[in-house]
């Protein structure tokens, strides 16, 4: 990037102070307190890779058992445990977390930022994920391994048929989902707000577009699963009736909730894979991606349509044909979007000069395999054919083509592509090529025969089959292939690890690539970029930088600066014009403490100890308070935090700083959660012969009072957020207003909480009697939880007011709490409609 003449270059002293503020913690502190996106991303990827190999070993055991008809290598119980844990591990502990880690590592680099927007929250999510994995795998230690399948259909996973193993599974899952939802919020904010100056939406790398869409999908799709697992946990341990037919529940509700998550989940894995290909293919063919707007549109279409495919997992549950057909239409439409991407890649190959590097080989392997998986996907999308193929090995073949072909091969391409960036070393091309051919041949040898095994009548999830089925040879081929595939992955991992020490040094940009991460050092320094790059085209490293004084001004202001706080440019959503400075977190222990507390809550609930639960809640609360105090300190508590370069304010109200986006996203998550519960109740209602069994909740005055109190909290927070000067240097004028506003919002929120509790206490409902009653309890509980979150953020506003001399920070925090309170108000409205209005309205 060029420098204009008139600006002052940072001095050596500036540089060393800048490096000091970005210095990584050393020794044990590094392990526990580092929050930097690169270390968090690396941890995600390493942990996920470990789980990948564990899940792979489970698969090998299963393949050995199935190598011959009627073998006795594994018992039925062990086999069922293994396929449950294999699916759970690969989906929840490998694929999604790995991609979150890759995104956490790459997005800031690719977009020209210095860290993720809420680096500590990012770290918190990683710890949640790690603890989720530990909880799930502790099931092997205590000898209660989940065995109800990764889809955990009730009633098999319900109180009557599953033991505590299922609780372990549900808690592990809930923590992993919580982590994924958090990661999604991070991705949305980093992509929308933290792009390098000039990187308008039309110049954004496809990977960033994709992760934006994926993050939106995660929020819309993972929240329902989190809600679903909560409902199942209540059924299992609190005697509620959501899935019990006798009491107004319905086992199909679980399938809806699970697949509303489950199908988008597939695209949450595939779309990043496709995005990796969209980054790798152009670089290794030395040609810009052809049809960029079409690829972006295809990603958007895939993301949206993936939300409307879930019923195609339920084609055989006896739904009416027209229902099935709506979802057949959606399932087939989505394949056109994949067609667009495939043709864009092939046209890029055609127009460019492809080099058969290892990343390119894996990309070609991806195309070869994924297209086949997509085509079998169209086949199983057809309801009448699916009635035959469903739950047979044909489907096993299909989704391994899509997931290994569509996600794992791209990940391998990406690893070999970005390894020089991660480590500064180039992995051996020869070993990489061998590992590609091993995985490619092993994959097809394993999974191609499964199409036939399925068509010839072998169902999934059987621990054995008899010789007369005539699929012995096919299964033997699959088993041999599985070992070849495993050898390929072991060799690939070895190649990468050996490169850490022996690989050729790569320099910043060994492939001659086009996107910003290749402008940083290899491996990148702690702040990624001393001087933030400016962007004037889709391929910033292939084109000359833009001559735009406004952009250059921002780059100059942030050139090895600021030096008293970690910060990165925050730019406008559409055009990425210079905006403000976003403060980035320094190392902290509190994410680990709070995530550990959350995991301890799960442990306490599993062992049934109130004391453990109570203690861990205390740990969580203390952890969050310490976390918030640390936040405020970094934002210049007690002193004025000067604008960066004198022009870019450190934080500003509204969408000009990350906090507003975070609060909005949190409000959206709350609304999606309560809407899921409300829709669940509507679903149960239309399917139940009687609804409700007795009285409705019928506490209109208490409910209206809650609404009024919440509206008051919203109004108070808004009112407070509009007072006081925004200038960092101006003396505080609105201290009293802010305190009054927080006090009002806090009191109103407390009143709303009391009224919510009163609604339940004064009613005669019994959550174990009927699903309606269970639903009311859950809705009121969700509402109470939302209010507690509102009170929490109001508390943060109080802390901000008490610790800051200037008015801007309390204003921002009040605005954030107003956003969240608005979400809580919507939660109340939905809950009220579902408990009182709808039961009266429906037939």
């Amino acid at each position: 990037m060029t420098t204009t003449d008139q600006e002052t270059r940072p001095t050596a002293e500036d540089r060393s102070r800048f490096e000091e503020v970005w210095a990584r913690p050393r020794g044990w502190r590094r392990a526990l307190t580092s929050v930097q996106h690169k270390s968090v991303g690396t941890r995600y990827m390493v942990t996920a890779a470990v789980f990948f190999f564990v899940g792979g070993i489970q698969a090998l055991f299963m393949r050995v058992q199935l190598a011959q008809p009627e073998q006795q290598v594994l018992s039925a119980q062990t086999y069922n445990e293994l396929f449950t844990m294999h699916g759970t591990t690969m989906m929840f502990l490998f694929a999604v977390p790995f991609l979150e880690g890759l995104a956490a590592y790459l997005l800031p680099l690719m977009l020209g930022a210095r860290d993720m927007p809420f680096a500590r929250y990012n770290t918190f999510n990683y710890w949640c994920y790690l603890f989720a994995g530990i909880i799930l795998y502790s099931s092997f230690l205590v000898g209660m391994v989940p065995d109800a399948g990764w889809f955990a259909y009730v009633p098999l996973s319900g109180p009557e048929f599953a033991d505590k193993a299922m609780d372990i599974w549900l808690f592990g899952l809930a923590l992993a989902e919580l982590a994924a939802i958090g990661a999604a919020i991070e991705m949305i904010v980093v992509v929308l707000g933290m792009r390098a100056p000039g990187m308008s939406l039309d110049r954004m790398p496809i990977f960033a577009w994709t992760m934006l869409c994926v993050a939106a999908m995660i929020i819309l799709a993972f929240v329902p699963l989190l809600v679903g697992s909560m409902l199942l946990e209540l059924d299992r341990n609190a005697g509620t009736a959501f899935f019990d037919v006798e009491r107004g529940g319905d086992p199909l509700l679980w399938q809806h909730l699970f697949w509303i998550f489950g199908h988008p989940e597939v695209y949450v894995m595939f779309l990043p894979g496709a995005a990796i290909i969209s980054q790798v293919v152009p670089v290794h063919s030395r040609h810009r991606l052809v049809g960029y707007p079409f690829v972006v549109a295809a990603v958007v279409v895939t993301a949206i349509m993936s939300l409307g495919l879930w019923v195609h997992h339920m084609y055989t549950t006896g739904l009416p044909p027209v229902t099935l057909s709506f979802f057949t239409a959606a399932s087939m439409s989505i394949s056109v979007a994949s067609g667009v991407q495939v043709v864009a890649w092939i046209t890029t190959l055609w127009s460019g000069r492809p080099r058969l590097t290892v990343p390119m080989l894996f990309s070609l392997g991806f195309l070869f395999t994924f297209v086949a998986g997509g085509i079998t996907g169209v086949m199983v999308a057809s309801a009448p054919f699916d009635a035959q193929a469903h739950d047979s090995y044909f489907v096993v073949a299909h989704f391994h083509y899509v997931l290994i072909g569509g996600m794992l091969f791209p990940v391998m391409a990406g690893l070999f592509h970005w390894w020089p960036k991660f480590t500064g070393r180039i992995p051996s091309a020869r070993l990489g090529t061998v590992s590609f051919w091993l995985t490619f041949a092993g994959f097809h040898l394993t999974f191609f025969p499964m199409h036939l095994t399925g068509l010839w009548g072998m169902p999934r999830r059987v621990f054995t089959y008899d010789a007369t089925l005539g699929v012995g040879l096919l299964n033997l081929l699959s088993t041999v292939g599985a070992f070849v595939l495993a050898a390929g992955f072991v060799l690939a991992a070895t190649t990468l690890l050996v490169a850490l020490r022996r690989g050729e040094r790569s320099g910043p940009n060994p492939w001659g690539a086009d996107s910003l991460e290749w402008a940083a050092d290899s491996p990148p320094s702690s702040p990624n970029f001393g001087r933030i790059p400016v962007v004037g085209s889709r391929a910033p490293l292939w084109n000359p930088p833009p001559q735009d004084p406004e952009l250059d001004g921002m780059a100059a202001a942030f050139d090895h600066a600021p030096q008293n706080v970690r910060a990165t440019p925050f730019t406008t959503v559409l055009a990425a014009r210079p905006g403000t400075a976003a403060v980035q977190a320094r190392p902290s222990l509190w994410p680990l403490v709070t995530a550990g507390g959350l995991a301890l809550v799960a442990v306490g609930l599993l062992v049934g100890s109130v004391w453990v639960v109570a203690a861990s809640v205390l740990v969580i609360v203390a952890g969050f308070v310490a976390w918030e105090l640390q936040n405020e300190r970094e934002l210049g508590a007690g002193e004025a935090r000067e604008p960066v370069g004198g022009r870019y304010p450190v934080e500003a109200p509204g969408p000009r700083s990350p906090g507003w986006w975070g609060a909005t996203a949190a409000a959206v998550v709350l609304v999606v959660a309560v809407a899921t519960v409300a829709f669940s109740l509507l679903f149960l209602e239309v399917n139940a012969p009687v609804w409700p069994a007795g009285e409705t909740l019928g506490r209109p005055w208490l409910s209206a009072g809650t609404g009024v109190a919440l509206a008051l909290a919203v109004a108070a927070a808004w009112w407070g957020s509009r007072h006081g000067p925004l200038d960092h240097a101006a003396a505080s004028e609105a201290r009293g207003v802010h305190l009054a506003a927080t006090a009002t919002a806090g009191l109103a929120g407390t009143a709303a909480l009391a009224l919510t509790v009163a609604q339940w206490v004064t009613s005669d409902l019994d959550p174990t009697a009927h699903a309606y009653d269970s639903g009311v309890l859950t809705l009121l509980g969700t509402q109470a939880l939302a209010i507690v979150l509102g009170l929490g953020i109001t508390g943060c506003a109080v802390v901000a007011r008490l610790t800051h001399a200037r008015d801007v920070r309390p204003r921002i925090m009040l605005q954030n709490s107003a956003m969240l309170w608005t979400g809580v108000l919507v939660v109340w409205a939905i809950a009220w409609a579902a408990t009182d209005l709808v039961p009266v309205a429906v037939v």
Partner: protein
Amino acid sequence: MIDARIRSMFPPAGDVADRVDSHWQLLLVVGSVVWLVVVTAMLVAVLRRRRAEREERDDDVPGDEPGRGHLVVAFLGGVAPALIILGIMADSVLTLRDTGAATDASRAPVVVEVDGRQFWWEVRYPDHDVETANEIHIPTGQDVRIELTSDDVIHSFWVPQLAGKVDLVPGRTNVLTLHADEPGTYWGRCAEYCGLQHAWMRFVVVAHDAPEYAGWLEAQARPARSPDRVDDGDDQPGGDETGGDDGPGAGPDTEVAAGREIFMSSSCVYCHTIAGTEARGTLGPDLTHLASRQAIGAGVLPNDRESLARWITEPQDVKPGNAMPGTELDDDELDALITYLESLE
């Protein structure tokens, strides 16, 4: 174990399966062609440029996006697949219209109720007061309405050669129409993971021509043969077949009577029904005509003396996790019990 040669959806043996099969052939042909075209294009794209690579210079600037590229992506990537998908969707909807809707009870002359249990199938003919397990007998050439229910977990009913699968969901009655053109034995099984022994939850559908079917129904509707009525029978083929290698002494009749006594005085009666006797249990399969069935344990063992002995003494070894406890019997008692069970034709 089960005498059914074909266990896949090919060749289809009924009109529902037929219709799905022709839909599948369309999917297969179109899918294969599309895949071949895409992979060929990919390989040509890579290989064709490999020759040009020699001319590549180091200072090459990566090519800019050609306007033509947009058109290629839009038409080959968007419009062409959309047209193909429209065609497939049309055939899918039409197939669904022909096969998806369940036949009304009024239009289907034969109604069979199938209740999925962990891990076997209870089969009832409500119009004929017949109850059996793991075997569904149907007449050829007629629509048979199968009403599927479950009281425990979700199962799925799948006879690949006759139709696609339909789940058995607690709280719902799902309906499937079977239609077999030819007499024969069609293999079926549970297709939804339902717990420990999901792999061994199988059944057969036996299609008879109309007179044979009527005969079967009539035989099944009779109460069990009791040993004191064995004398009335004109012949005893069962006794000859199974009792041939029995020890000397006890005649078949007395042994059957002894076996019956053992059955009625043991815990068997708590779970099993034998029509015409005091055994009225409903937790396990109805044994009234046990000897007429091909297999025991929902397909896990063939129905012969040796297997019955194993099944009675150590069912948890044969099929761990099924609901039947093992019964301790000495050899004589076991022999007698099996002889009795084998008399239940």
